[in-house]
């Protein structure tokens, strides 16, 4: 990074843009971060995060490497506890248990067949023939019905991530947290996966929180893009573009530029 832009980033970091005021929310709340902070020792990773997300919204979270995106998702999924502030869920009795997590790596069990891996997503929800039935159905949705009884090791990277997506979705989560799930895929497979993700999200209407480092991906998929910088929300931007969205359209490019400007000053 050239020195000039580094300096620009510094000045931006020093004086973060105020988050845009919350818009009136008609839909019920899926979850809300209220003044959430996360410290590891005296290292401040997240600081005073306020984020109110209505049910069914697709939120993309963007930020530079190490800015705390994964930490935010881990808090959301209950893998970690916030050091400060609180996290509330719309349906309080369900909370974390109806949040599913999709990792950057597929994390499939190599010793279980594809369909058995999907059934992991039904742990505590269904078992036996019922679980298999539901797992096969969702495998059909991600286009892998014919690979159900194969070992994960014979699948390509994109196919493994589709199995991981099926596993995350088979239990019909209310919230799906995705931590750069497409980051390791090649460009074409990634676009395919984005379309698949959007299609399933439109059909199932869960609340999606997608962490990504790909700004184009964020504006193509999300209703709302949140930029995190220096542990705070530096930009909270709606993406009021009708679906289906056309990649590379002027509207998306303009939003993308705005986010990049904010990221790099």
């Amino acid at each position, binding site marked *: 990074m050239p020195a000039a832009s580094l300096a620009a980033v510094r000045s931006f970091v020093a004086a973060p843009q105020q988050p845009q005021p919350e818009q009136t929310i008609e839909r019920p709340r899926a979850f809300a971060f209220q003044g959430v902070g996360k410290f590891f020792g005296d290292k401040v990773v997240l600081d005073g995060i306020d984020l109110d997300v209505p049910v069914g919204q697709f939120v993309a979270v963007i930020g530079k490497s190490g800015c705390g995106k994964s930490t935010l998702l881990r808090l959301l999924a209950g*893998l970690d506890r916030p050091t400060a502030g609180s996290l509330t869920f719309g349906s309080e009795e369900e909370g974390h*248990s109806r949040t599913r*997590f999709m*990792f950057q790596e597929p*994390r499939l069990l190599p*010793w*279980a067949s594809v369909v058995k891996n999907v059934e*992991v997503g039904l742990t505590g929800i269904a078992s036996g023939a019922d679980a298999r039935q539901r797992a096969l159905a969702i495998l059909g949705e991600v286009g892998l019905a014919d690979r159900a009884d194969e070992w994960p*090791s014979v699948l390509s990277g994109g196919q493994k991530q589709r199995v991981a997506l099926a596993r995350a979705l088979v239990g019909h989560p209310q919230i799906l947290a995705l931590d750069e799930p497409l980051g390791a895929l090649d460009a074409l497979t990634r676009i395919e996966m984005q379309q698949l993700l959007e299609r399933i999200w439109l059909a199932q209407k869960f609340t999606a929180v997608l962490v990504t480092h790909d700004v184009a991906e964020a504006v193509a998929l999300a209703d709302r893009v949140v930029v995190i910088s220096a542990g705070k929300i530096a930009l909270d931007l709606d993406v009021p573009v009708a679906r289906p969205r056309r990649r590379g359209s002027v509207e998306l490019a303009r939003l993308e530029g705005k986010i990049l400007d904010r990221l790099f000053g």
Partner: protein
Amino acid sequence: MSFSTRLATPLATRLGRNGIGWLLPVLVIAGWEIASRAGLMPPNVLPAPSAVAEAFWRLTLSGELIRNIGVSTARALAGFAVGGSIGFALGLANGLSTLSRGLTDTTLQMIRNIPHLALIPLVILWFGIDEEAKLFLVALGVFFPIYVNTLLGIQSVDPQLVEMGRVYGMDRRALFFRVILPGALPAIFVGLRYALGIMWLTLIVAETISASSGLGYMAMQAREFLLIDVVVLSILIYALLGKLADSLARLLERLSLGWHPAFQNA
């Protein structure tokens, strides 16, 4: 999947591949027989293969061979069961619990550095030449490879998979049986095969030193009566039993690790 692929490999190819491994032993035995018949190999140094075969037949008819094989196998399996299960249990405990590991691992690693056969004089003092002595030695010999590899296997389970299991709501039991144990299995099999080798080795030594039955005893008796064909026969049978145990372990490994890329299209 991989299993059917393996079965689908043409039978002739598989026979050919396995068959080639037997070519050398057959040639050696043929050469040995010829050398003995030509008088190049004095029978009091190494009897001809045909003489060993005769000894085999003689001892089979008298029932002596079967009885001794039975006695030795029972000893081997008993020692293996005791040492193996303690090693496996401790390996699991120390792999899963830092408290247990902190408590016992250092001690075990220290004991591991003592060659277990060095304990023979002590064991004879403790147990005399009774069954307990052989059981103890085999169990001790088998314990460490099983313990070390079970522990290693559990410690090498991918923590990302464990985290995935937790996120998807697996309880401790499910986590163990569906994630940790299968992940540790390849290493456990390495330990198993190694332990089987040690099992026979220990038993041979123990039976040779002190026993009143078993293959080792049969060999020592034969030595006293200068029945060199029986001595050679005992050695061959040890080799075959060792090979048999290893083949069984390999079969078990192939059946349970079918998912492992190393066992696919093999």
